């Protein structure tokens, strides 16, 4: 039987809805699990409970063959005994220690020689050469993030827990580190759980994801599955990106990329660091629908397709059309009625190149 992670817990904070989470998934070396949800959804509490920093009133947490928490059986394993790497959102670097001191902090059990060797390895791996003697506050945000990660993995933990690892960075650095983080984690080959509210991060980093909202897990699956096939309206609202398709960039000209998705090609804004394999993400709000055969507009992408599904969202309706790939649009109910859309109607979907988000796919 494959090793499993079992999280089943109840935790209440005064004045907030209780967090009741059940999550179970097979642990694979280097697999990255994403806990995705808006702030207040309880995802950080779950991560902290797995770290042993939060004590649920009730529940069990099992990692492979070790039980970390079993309230019924009176098992409460201290964070020190769980052999985990944990990185807090603001990194929590020790201001009293140098970079090397921070990385060496949890390596007290190693002999001095091995410790020094491990610290040097980490400085090398995380591109921090020459910064060993520097205090954390003298570093840039990206460097601090790498020190925190180096410190968390220095003792070779069996599970890595990252709380919003990129959110403290400015946007350009975040974009750059997103890809780096993925390859680093794959290189380290430690099973990880990452908490985030950013769908682009989820698609880049995650092998699997659990969508959380209001203290409960709403859906689990691969990121592409969850984003393109949300189990219900609530998940669709939480994830915010309705169309995720696999594509490849065939041409880049004048900063516009031509992306082939199945039989159709789309125009998107090109970003320099992309490989050719991408996820194409389009938010439903950015898609307009009209009956086939209309005039030219400024929108770069117009795709003809047939209506495959219509879901009511109160005053809005979610319309999925097949135009080489399933594309979801959100329009008002009155527009739905005016256009007379029903299943099978032929429509043209339009969206601007800037609405097509390209996320690298490894």
């Amino acid at each position, binding site marked *: 039987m494959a090793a499993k992670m079992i999280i089943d817990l109840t935790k209440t904070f005064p004045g907030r809805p209780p967090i009741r989470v059940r999550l179970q998934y097979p642990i694979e070396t280097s697999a990255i699990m994403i806990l995705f949800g808006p702030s207040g959804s309880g995802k950080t509490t779950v991560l902290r409970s797995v*770290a*042993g*920093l939060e004590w649920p009133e009730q529940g069990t947490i099992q990692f492979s063959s070790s039980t970390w928490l079993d309230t019924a059986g009176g098992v409460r394993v201290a*964070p020190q005994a*769980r*052999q985990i790497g944990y990185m807090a959102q603001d990194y*929590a670097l020790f201001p009293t220690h140098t970079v090397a001191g921070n990385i060496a*902090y*949890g390596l007290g059990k190693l002999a001095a020689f091995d410790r020094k060797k491990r610290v040097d390895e980490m400085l090398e791996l995380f591109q921090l050469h020459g910064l060993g003697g520097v205090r954390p506050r003298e570093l840039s945000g990206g460097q601090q993030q790498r020190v925190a990660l180096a*410190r968390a993995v220095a003792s070779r933990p069996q599970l890595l827990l990252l709380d919003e690892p990129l959110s403290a960075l400015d946007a350009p650095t975040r974009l750059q580190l997103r890809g780096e983080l993925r390859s680093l984690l794959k290189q380290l080959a430690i099973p990880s759980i990452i908490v985030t509210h950013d769908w682009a991060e989820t698609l880049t980093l995650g092998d699997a994801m659990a969508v959380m909202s209001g203290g409960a897990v709403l859906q689990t699956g691969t990121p592409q599955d969850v984003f393109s096939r949300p189990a219900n309206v609530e998940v669709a609202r939480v994830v915010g990106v309705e169309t995720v398709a696999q594509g490849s960039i065939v041409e880049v000209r004048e900063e516009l990329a031509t992306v082939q998705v199945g039989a159709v090609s789309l125009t998107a804004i090109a970003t320099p660091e992309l490989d050719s394999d991408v996820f194409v993400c389009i938010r439903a709000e950015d898609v307009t629908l009209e009956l086939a055969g209309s005039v030219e507009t400024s929108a770069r992408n117009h795709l003809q397709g047939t209506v495959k599904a219509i879901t009511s969202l109160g005053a809005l309706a979610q319309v999925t059309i097949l135009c080489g790939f399933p594309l979801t649009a959100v329009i008002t109910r009155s527009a739905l009625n005016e256009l007379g859309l029903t299943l099978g109607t032929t429509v043209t979907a339009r969206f601007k190149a800037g609405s097509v988000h390209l996320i690298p796919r490894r």
Partner: protein
Amino acid sequence: MNWTAIWVTFKLASLTAGALVVIGLPIAYWVSFSRWRWKFFIQSIVALPLVLPPTVLGFYILVAIGPHSPIGQLYSDLVGHPLPFTFEGLLFASILYSLPFAVQPFAAAFEQVDRKLIEASWTLGVSRLGTFFKLVLPLSKAGILTGMVLSFAHTLGEFGVVLMVGGNIEGVTRTVSIDIYDEVQALNYAGAAKTALLLLVVSYGTLVLVYAINRKVWAVWPQK
């Protein structure tokens, strides 16, 4: 100047400040980190010497360590002489009297330590005690120095408790403040003035030290 009294006083103040580091740190740690709901009762007991008249405190200590109390009896059985009116008895009283002056700055410093740093230390496999020595203590050094200096200075000037518990024995329990009182009683204002000036200078010096420590010296002198 009565150099014997000055020696006794400085010895008493140093030993008190030293003992309060040993006793005060665990109490302060408990006060800042315990989640016990009735904690405030203990906090109030620790702070009691701040508001209690020294003579009242002295009276209770005297009774508590006297030959008729269990503590006093145990002490005289072990050591061979009773505790009141000895230097050891005076030290005991001084420790209790200056307890809040050490514990409160210690506890305030511990509370300033970001809990996230402590949690990070735990997840790195370092025990609670290890975290205290490797992380909490270095981060609280300004508060700990403040507590030591304040309890030292406070012991220098104590009068009521000394008189009640220590009496006025030359070379044993006669401290500077009692010496000044004796000089004034004997109308020797010149002698009193010299000793008083010394105490004033030392007290001012220690307060300068406290404020200097808490002015974030390290922002001015970056440490390497």
